[in-house]
């Protein structure tokens, strides 16, 4: 006995291929099933036409406006499905840098912020060297809001846990679609486990003509549980059609 649902699926064209022959033969040989098949075909047409007719109506302005708002939101908040955590991977090679920075700042400068510029040496194997430059504060006697110890630990916190490859890979997929001022998320979490929001601050050309993007962490980021918040900005430039992180700016 052929189930009525099979006849409906046959009429709709959704019956699995392997069942079609048997159902088709049953319909051909049974007038009742043939009538049922025709009824299902007709009801499919009726429902299709009803759907088209209702959908052909003009949407009220109130719904059009809401749709516009939703689409604006979609443009602003772009999320990448593949999550990763800012503080999940320990980068051994950066521990030395952090230690060096600590010594550097103990050496005499009060700083307001620090910028680390990455420079691709072009050596086979993709090794990079990192240049560090601390901005001298005019008034050396007044550290602004952050002690040298705090700053060096901020630097070590960023580099100790920052998964650069993952960040660059994820952001590369969306960065060209963003406009200046757009906010986005990468499922990146700060030290307190809060999702970090980013802002594309500006698109610019570097001195050597590379297409670059300046990205800021929206608001202050907690680099550790004790951190009250740190401003972080990143610069990425496109080299050989691939974005590379060229600098990280940290300030309190």
């Amino acid at each position, binding site marked *: 006995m052929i189930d009525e649902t099979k*006849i409906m699926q046959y009429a709709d064209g959704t019956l699995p291929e392997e069942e079609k022959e048997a159902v088709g033969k049953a319909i051909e040989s049974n007038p009742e099933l043939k009538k049922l098949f025709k*009824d299902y075909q007709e009801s499919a047409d009726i429902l299709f*036409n*009803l759907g088209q007719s*209702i959908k*052909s*109506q003009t949407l009220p302005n109130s719904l059009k406006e809401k749709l516009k708002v*939703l689409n604006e*939101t979609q443009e602003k908040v772009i*999320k990448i499905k593949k999550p990763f955590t800012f503080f999940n991977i320990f980068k051994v090679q950066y521990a030395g840098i952090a230690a060096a920075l600590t010594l550097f700042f103990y050496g005499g400068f009060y700083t307001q912020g620090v910028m680390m510029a990455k420079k691709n040496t072009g050596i086979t194997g993709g090794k990079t060297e990192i240049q560090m430059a601390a901005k001298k504060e005019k008034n050396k006697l007044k550290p602004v809001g952050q002690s040298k110890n705090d700053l060096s630990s901020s630097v070590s916190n960023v580099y100790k846990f920052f998964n650069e490859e993952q960040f660059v890979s994820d952001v590369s997929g969306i960065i060209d679609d963003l406009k200046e001022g757009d906010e986005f998320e990468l499922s990146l979490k700060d030290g307190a486990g809060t999702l970090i929001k980013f802002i594309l601050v500006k698109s610019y050309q570097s001195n050597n003509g590379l297409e670059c993007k300046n990205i800021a962490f929206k608001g202050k980021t907690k680099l550790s549980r004790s951190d009250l918040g740190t401003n972080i900005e990143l610069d990425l430039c496109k080299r050989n059609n691939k974005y590379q992180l060229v600098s990280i700016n940290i300030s309190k």
Partner: protein
Amino acid sequence: MKEKLDENFVKSLVLIAQGIAKGKCDPYDLVNGAMEYLIKNKEKYMDHPNLKALAVLKMKGLFIDDIRKSKNFTSLTDEDGKEMEINDEQQMDMVEKMEVSSEAKKVLKIIKSMGEKCQEILMLAADQMSMQEMQEITGVKSLGTVLSRLSNCRKELKGLLTA
């Protein structure tokens, strides 16, 4: 965001709302309510894999809230715990006001005179939804139940149209 948020998305909601709204509840109010909900919770749901299903479930919730308010119900089940059927002549007036073909009006009126489950599943079918999508939205446990419900409702619809 998996779903394309264009006018077709909203029009699908309008169509499905026809199968949810009854009595004094205007289908457009349900769609408006669902859209407001999506806007309010945009960051939470913007990458939801099935935004339409989410909106439809919200519309169903809004409909129940609306009925509870208008009828002063605390529950939508009768003493035996069965689902209550809510019928109201006003829903037919709403169909009359729609700017659709007379044939579509006739079909819609007949669908609205049918049971709640048929109304819902037939409007989902009119939106060309797959069985899996219908199962997700109706909350029916098995795909077989969706198939048999749809097949029975379509048979009933055809019978009412030719009667």
